[in-house]
């Protein structure tokens, strides 16, 4: 790196800046929009200088949306809570089920193990809309429609295969002899799983969990069809901003900012694990 010339460094800096601008522009623009009113947002040409307002955020937090046609109740904070609850619970359930399953698939070659693993992965092949209609009918019969349990169950279609396949690759990367060494020193296989395999696969499990969380958080279609207003996450809740009197761009932007904040914070915090986890576990596995 020390041998690069000045020109090379300048060009590299310029290239990096371009890439950053390209990828960050939408987010920065949304952030700016969230502090503006609909009028200033829709000004033509758009202006970078404006008088910031917190009205959008206030509206979201208080749940009172004031439009030209009158005051509207929105349940954005409720939606946000739903998103947190659904995503966290789904990922927790998927980890609880998926990590031991991944271990089993990695360590024990039993009859049909590859087929089962592949079937689980194939859940992600089917277009969600294709699955949704029959699923809705079943859920209505079973009384699972519009319940958290039902939604968390369906979210396993997103989280479980992801966690299973990433974590499996991680377990396969741990030399089996390390576990054997532990077992022969007088420990059961369960103790070995807990004390040796789990800690060694830790970064991979964290990465898979994080990725599954992001996928679950961003899900739209399952919740749209299977949940009514009080169970809907932010992705669906944002539809409420398309009102009879026009689209509330300011509030939508503020809602986006609020809803990406948890995932963004989580991703930034665990960025190192995510990159490591994805490049080591998933690719090799």
């Amino acid at each position, binding site marked *: 790196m020390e041998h690069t010339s000045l020109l090379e460094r300048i060009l590299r800096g310029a290239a990096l800046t371009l890439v950053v601008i390209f990828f960050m522009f939408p987010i920065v623009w949304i952030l700016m929009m969230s502090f503006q009113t609909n009028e200033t947002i829709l000004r033509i040409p758009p202006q970078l200088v404006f008088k910031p307002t917190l009205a959008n955020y206030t509206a979201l937090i208080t749940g009172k949306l004031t439009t030209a046609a009158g005051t509207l109740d929105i349940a954005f904070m409720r939606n946000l809570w739903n998103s947190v609850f659904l995503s966290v619970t789904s990922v927790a359930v998927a980890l609880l089920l998926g990590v031991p399953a991944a271990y089993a698939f990695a360590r024990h070659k039993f009859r049909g193990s590859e087929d089962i693993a592949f079937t689980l992965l194939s859940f992600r092949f089917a277009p969600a809309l294709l699955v949704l209609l029959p699923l809705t009918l079943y859920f209505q019969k079973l009384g699972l429609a519009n319940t958290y349990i039902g939604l968390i169950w369906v979210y396993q279609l997103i989280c479980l295969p992801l966690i299973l396949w990433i974590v499996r690759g991680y377990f396969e990367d741990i*030399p*089996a*002899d*390390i576990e*054997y*060494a*532990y*077992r*022969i*020193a*007088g*420990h*059961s*296989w369960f103790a070995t799983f807990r004390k*040796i395999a789990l*800690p*060694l696969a830790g970064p991979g499990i964290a990465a898979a969990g994080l990725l599954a969380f992001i996928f679950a958080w961003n899900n739209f279609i399952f919740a749209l069809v299977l949940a009514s207003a009080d169970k809907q996450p932010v992705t669906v809740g944002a539809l409420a901003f398309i009102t009879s009197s026009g689209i509330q761009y300011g509030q939508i932007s503020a809602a986006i900012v609020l809803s990406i904040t948890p995932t963004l914070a989580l991703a930034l915090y665990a960025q190192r694990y995510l990159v490591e986890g994805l490049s080591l576990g998933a690719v090799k596995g």
Partner: protein
Amino acid sequence: MSQSALTISGVDKFYGPIDRGVHAVQNLTMEIDKGEIVALLGSSGCGKTSTLRMIAGFEEVSRGTISVAGRKVHTLPPVKRNVAMAFEGYSLYPPLTVRENMAFALKAAKLRKSDVDAKVASIAKLLEIEDILERYPSSISGGQQQRASLGRALIREADLHLLDEPMGQLEPQLRAVLRGRIKHFIKERGLTAILVTHDQTEANALADRIAVMEGGVLQQFDTPDMLKQRPANLFTGTFVGEPPMNVFEAYVGTAADKINLRLPDGLSLDYDKDAFSGSVRDELLKRQRVVIGIRPYAVRRSKDGVPATVSANQWLGDQTHIAADFAGGSLVLVEHDRTRLELGAPINISIDPKNLHVFDQSSGMAISHGMELA
């Protein structure tokens, strides 16, 4: 020495379905006494590691039984077999230091901390790893990891210590020193050890008895001396010993009071009938074709011997290896002095009947070794 530490009887190992999968170990039967050091010797894929892993419990036994100290263990999980093992790939626990790795093996035994420290210290001294006890496995060399892994196995009190290629990564000098110390350590404590190796020097130096395996079949299980002097078949004969035994096919013939071993290219080794003991002579004369084997150290050059042509001459610093074209094949002889022989030089070689190993031509089983029947 009477109690058996390990009994393997009629053990088969199939990878894949029984009788149809890969037959890695075939009908293996061995008995190892308490206090013995046994080496499983063979080339890669001969079944030696599979055998070790079946004893440890990491591979299922397809057929047959394994008993450790009189208990049938082949259906028990590894934790209940009371065996210790050093792994070929070291398999140290990455988050623990070398000291913790070694002490860890004692945790299940619930010893007092002072006892554990004393044990770790003595083993570390034995293996010369005292200065890396506080380091982590990822920060030490392969040889050091291997010694730590060996230490982790030796520190335990178990009915059986299984060592898989325990010294493969060590430097030659250190290896020689450690061999002696480890042997002493095992003998002093009356431990029973099985080591897997493809290095004959290591097997010879450490083991009381060596089990030679090939193609999943136990070829011979005997002391190092006996393996050299009385190889049970052609495989052990050529596998054990460095440089390997010279072998030639020969026709047995008689003329007057001579026995001729006729080799290709019209050559013949002629011996007086009285040169062989009666029983060996009878066995020889019963057959037409045999395979004869001669150790390189037993080949002599003499004026009235059979002609050969030098094809290579290497001085190794303490001995000379001479390769010669002989009887349609190649023959190696070893001399202790530096020999000046040009390539292509004619030499004459003779072989004392006392040093002749004779094998059956079709089965490869030994017929005689020198003056004695196999």
